[in-house]
């Protein structure tokens, strides 16, 4: 083929001499392989009562086994206005608290920094998500979290396979995909996000097959991690206490039609409870999710069942060390609808009203089951590309097992992205 090569060289010189200036194809991309982005999430909230779900006259112990302490969330992280049990014993089934109680307050939820490095020469991506949680109230501590830190490799050019190692998002369900304030349409996470949106250390794989005749793709996510998919408040985020991994995964189908998208999936998690040391004290979770998008209208739903064995000792989670490892069962679901109305290219870009209905039923072994229902309505206004203003009202209702308590919340969020 030396003749062909000579021809090619001559042709290339010919073409270069004749080239018109109508294309730009840089050898290296115009964008730097290093990208740094982030956001600042400033909140303002007013919670009814004392900002907790603890009824004033309830004497049951542990206090957090008979009510949903996560229900009156006030920010995207799921932090609540207060977890003050007024001296009653609790056993670590609690979210993080902003400690604003019932006082209308501004607060800084999160200062986020995403650092992404994607060199051109190798199919690697290195990603870290650092978050500072500035807390100024008494009883709170400012924290710096490494929420994610992983390397992803795409080993084959001909296959849509990606392998990741490090600390990464959950692969359970779909809520983790919009679990950050700048991405989430609404302000607060769902009642079941505590089981599905945690980050953990380990290995992860992703694989996708396309079915072009059906405009469809099949996806498979699988992870083997220290702690499973529970949020950090319920599970040590970075340690394996039991020495055995937790397996989780999701199989999904997505139909990407020109005007409509349908995504459905089924998820699982199985392994030892990682809030205690015994490898035989296990947890199991199943989930189902579905989303439909038609033009600006979106409808999403997710269901979760989780079942945890009791019997271990010395429970440890993101809030500290606790005494009891009680068997636990919960199921929950949410349905969220939103409509994104484009407003143009000026300061006002998009208005997205939304509404969410959700319910959660839970029971600790030996305690009464309880059910909580929540309805959320609000709107998100996107200004330019950098600002999002969100406001919503949450109606919390104790339906069964838990005494009614005034714990509705108005909360809002101003997210500045950079």
């Amino acid at each position: 083929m030396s003749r062909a090569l000579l021809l090619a060289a001559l042709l290339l010189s010919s073409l270069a001499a004749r080239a018109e200036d109508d294309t730009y194809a840089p050898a290296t991309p115009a964008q730097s392989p290093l990208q740094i982005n982030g956001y600042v999430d400033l909140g303002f909230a007013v919670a009814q009562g004392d900002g907790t779900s603890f009824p004033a006259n309830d004497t049951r112990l542990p206090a957090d086994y008979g009510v949903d302490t996560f229900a009156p969330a006030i920010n995207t992280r799921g932090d609540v206005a207060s977890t003050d049990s007024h001296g009653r014993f609790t056993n670590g089934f609690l979210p993080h608290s902003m400690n604003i109680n019932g006082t209308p307050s501004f607060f800084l939820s999160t200062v986020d920094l995403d650092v992404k490095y994607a060199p051109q020469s190798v199919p690697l991506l290195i990603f870290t998500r650092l978050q500072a949680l500035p807390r100024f109230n008494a009883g709170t501590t400012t924290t710096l979290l490494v929420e994610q830190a992983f390397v992803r490799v795409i080993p084959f050019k001909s296959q849509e396979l990606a392998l990741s190692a490090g600390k990464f998002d959950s692969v359970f369900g779909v809520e983790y995909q919009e679990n950050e304030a700048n991405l989430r349409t609404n302000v607060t996470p769902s009642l079941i996000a505590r089981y599905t949106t945690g980050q953990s250390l380990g290995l992860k794989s992703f694989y996708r097959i396309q079915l072009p005749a059906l405009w469809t793709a099949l996806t498979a996510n699988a992870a083997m991690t220290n702690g499973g998919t529970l949020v950090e408040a319920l599970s040590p985020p970075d340690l394996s206490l039991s020495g055995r991994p937790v397996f989780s995964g999701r199989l999904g189908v997505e139909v990407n039609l020109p005007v409509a998208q349908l995504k459905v999936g089924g998820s699982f998690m199985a392994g030892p409870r990682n809030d205690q040391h015994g490898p035989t004290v296990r947890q199991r979770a199943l989930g189902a999710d579905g989303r439909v998008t038609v033009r600006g209208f979106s409808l999403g739903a997710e269901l979760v069942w989780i079942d945890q064995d009791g019997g271990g000792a010395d429970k440890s989670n993101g809030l500290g060390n606790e005494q009891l490892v009680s068997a636990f069962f919960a199921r929950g679901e949410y349905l969220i609808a939103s409509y994104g109305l484009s407003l143009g290219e000026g300061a006002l870009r998009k208005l997205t009203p939304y509404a969410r209905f959700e319910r959660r039923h839970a029971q600790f072994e030996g305690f009464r089951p309880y059910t909580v229902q929540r309805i959320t309505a609000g709107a998100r206004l996107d200004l330019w590309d950098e600002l999002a203003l969100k406001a919503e009202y949450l109606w919390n209702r104790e339906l069964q097992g838990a005494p009614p308590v005034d714990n509705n919340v108005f909360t809002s969020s101003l997210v500045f992205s950079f």
Partner: protein
Amino acid sequence: MKTHSALTAASLALALAFGPPAQGAKKKRADPAAEAQLRPLIEKHLTIAHELTAGLLAWDAGDYALAAAHFEALLALKDLPDDVAAAIKPLAADARKKGGGKPVADQTGTPEPATPAPDEPEIEATPKPKGPVLVTVSGSVTGGGAGGPGGAVVTLHRSNGSTPRPTPLSNKPLIQRDKKFLPHVLAVPVGSRVSFRNQDDIFHNVFSISPAHAFDTGLKRAGDSETLAFDKPGVVELLCNIHASMNAWLVVVDTPWYAVADGAGAFRIKKVPAGDYDVEVWHENASQPARSKLTIGEESAALSLSVGGDKRTNPFPPDKYGKPRQQQLGY
């Protein structure tokens, strides 16, 4: 000078490819008028040589799908000499058999060379102005932020007269390879047809939700292509619904006088008549185009332009339904 060297190189290539002895080629040189007459013929044979060479090189590299695409594009040429067609047909069939996929002729749109062919017709006004001196406007663009000025699109519109409608291009290629769009910035006259071709082994789904021209090619497997006409001027951001990291820009212009700056910011617009012009510079990193005025006399004009780099890169490119995507998730 450039045309001369191009023709010389093309002639040498043709001489090598199609047989006239090299010695004979040296004996006679066509005069400029004869060269102008020969130009369409040379361009046709240049295309033949290009497709043939590219196909053979792809074959040697083991990329049979690409080789098949080149051979099939060659076979689709009008007035292809019979002996060339006869020689290429079995090669094309063999390459397609080895490489898989569908023959180019079965795909939507007109067959097109598989790699960007930069030898498009020269940019010139339609109708061609009679009489006035045509000059070359060259210059450089600075700015564009951290990525530099490369890819800036410079356009000229008459400010003291009407700007003629540009001649559309047919089947300008914009390919997907190694999960990138090539080229990254493409400027075409309004009415042009752009051929989106997947040269990766994996699927792509090219789309745009830009107001200037929203479209969705759907899933395209290796070797597939789709050709679309762009009938409205404006900036079209190109994305892939599968791979959030892919993006490119198609700038549809309504003037025959335009150019895309190279990596150093240099550009050149040929055959511009004397007159007053509005100059506009678009860049992907500028939130607003830069605008200025230019008066062109009978001498070549040199321009020094600056464009902003203030536009924030969207870290969450949307999917084709407008939903933001995190690039680090999935694939």
